[in-house]
């Protein structure tokens, strides 16, 4: 064989404009939906209120779903028990807020936010530790078997709900928002709830932080590579099991954060609240693309907006609006809006 190689001039097939735009189309979905909502609703103030409400709901679902999509993408684990972390986060956070009643009951933004931060921290620590135990005891023995995963994680969810009954009792708990987060501000004739604006801000911060970790750090690089081909990540020298445990803990803690946010949004909590939200979470994870944080974000905002617009325009339609949305998106993009390529 000759030592000298013929010139191998690198070149890439030139893509058409539509091919270049294709990956970016899902990004347009949210603004397009907002514009369509404007024309469908007609009244600008109602539209603005509903849009903020939809975005707030979407952000909370994103916070809850982001960990789950990574867990599914990274280790192919379907965790029906994810709802347990939402419920536990809500109960722990609510307990902290009730204990800090002197801080939440005064009209001081600083004290109110400190109390909420303490509740969030406690909820995330408890659900993070719970996530570690859940992975070790329930998930680890059933790697590779979806049917077993569904059965045992649903069992784990039931056990967790029963634990809530044991610890906090079987009744609903009403939780009032801190004083400065009550009520609404008026903007352009629209009433915008203060808490929903805060939820939009928190969701955005979580998304940007997650994106920064995933795009700019070595651990993010390992997780992104692991979602695509965990075996090769191992062969490069990274212990994927440890990475997975870390992602599971972080995902559980984020669900706990989402639980606190959801509790303050609904102002009432029950042991099965996490289980109820899981339908929306599954829709978001599926339409976003399994394992994609960006897809999860777009999917969550889309679900939040569609739910709110549909509830205003045709309340009966709201019941099926998100299922219809999922069907439509999967017909458009069967692998979700931002599909992650998996190694065969």
């Amino acid at each position, binding site marked *: *064989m000759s030592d000298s190689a*013929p010139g191998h001039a690198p070149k890439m097939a030139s893509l058409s404009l539509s091919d270049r735009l294709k990956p970016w189309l899902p990004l347009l979905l949210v603004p397009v939906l907002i514009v369509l909502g404007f024309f469908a609703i007609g009244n600008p103030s109602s539209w603005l209120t509903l849009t903020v409400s939809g975005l707030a709901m979407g952000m909370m679902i994103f916070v809850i779903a982001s960990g789950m999509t990574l867990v599914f993408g990274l280790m192919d684990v379907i965790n029906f028990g994810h709802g347990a972390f939402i419920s536990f986060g809500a109960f722990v956070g609510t307990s902290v807020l009730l204990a800090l009643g002197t801080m939440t009951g005064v009209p001081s933004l600083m004290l109110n936010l400190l109390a909420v931060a303490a509740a969030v921290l406690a909820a995330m620590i408890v659900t993070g530790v719970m996530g570690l135990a859940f992975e070790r005891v329930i998930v680890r023995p059933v790697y590779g078997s979806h049917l077993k995963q569904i059965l045992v994680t649903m069992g784990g969810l039931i056990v967790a709900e029963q634990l809530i009954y044991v610890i906090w009792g079987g009744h609903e708990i009403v939780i009032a928002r801190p004083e400065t987060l009550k009520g609404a501000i008026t903007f352009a004739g629209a009433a915008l709830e203060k808490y929903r604006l805060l939820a939009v801000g928190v969701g955005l911060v979580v998304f940007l932080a997650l994106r920064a970790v995933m795009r700019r750090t070595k651990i993010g690089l390992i997780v992104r590579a692991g979602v695509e081909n965990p075996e090769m*990540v191992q062969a490069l020298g990274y212990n*994927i099991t440890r990475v997975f445990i870390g992602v599971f803990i972080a995902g559980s803690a984020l669900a706990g954060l989402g639980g606190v946010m959801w509790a303050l949004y609904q102002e009432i909590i029950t042991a099965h609240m996490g289980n109820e939200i899981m339908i929306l979470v599954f829709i978001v994870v599926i339409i976003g693309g399994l394992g994609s944080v960006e897809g999860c974000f777009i999917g969550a905002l889309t679900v939040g907006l569609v739910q709110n617009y549909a509830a205003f325009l045709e309340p009966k339609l709201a019941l099926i609006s998100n299922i219809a949305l999922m069907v439509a998106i999967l017909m458009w993009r069967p692998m979700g809006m931002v599909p992650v390529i998996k190694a065969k």
Partner: protein
Amino acid sequence: MSDPILQLKGVKTDIAQYHILHGVSFDVPRGGVTMLLGRNGAGKTTTLRTIMGLWKPHAGEILLDGAPINGLNPAQIARRGIGFVPEDMGIFSDLSVEENIRLAALSGQPVAERLDWIFGAFPALRTFWKSPAGTLSGGQKQMLSVARAVVEDRELYLIDEPSKGLAPAIVATLARALKDLKNRGATILMVEQNFSLARALGDHVAVMDDGRIVWTGAMAALSADTALQERLMGLKMEHS
């Protein structure tokens, strides 16, 4: 033969209910290229994957520098100093070329001198440094796969059929890079079906058939003996 860097002793591997390796034993000498040859289905890829810890052997021993590695997971084996280029290339399509390379640099950032060598051997990787690896051609992906394995010095490189499905021009580029790597003192265990490439690069040979090693020796000896080639691998070819 110099002291072996890798030794396989009676390695047996099953995949599901199938017995694939039936007691594989051979040594890989330090320095140079050892070719693992054999017909399709002989167990060559399974041997490399077993060394890498991606399949667990149920019997036998694998020694790297005299220390057993067959109980370790793939990450531990990689950190003992083995670089791996799998048959399917194992490229992360959603990551850029740069990110693929950066991920393989266990010590942090790739060393500039080594990157220069990679860009010299594979200019396409410099051109598409920021592009998603999934948009590369098959040949460019193979270059990336090799570059990723050699971005840092390793004790041993396991390379599985680097020429598979590639155009002759790209195979020649890869061959030149691997020869250069060998000249720098690297030890390579390589599976290859392209006997011309194997002959050009190989110093030592282990031939497999039906999950066993059936012949080991110098590449020069195998190259010179067409009858032996035909008996071991069913090859009938003219010497170039």
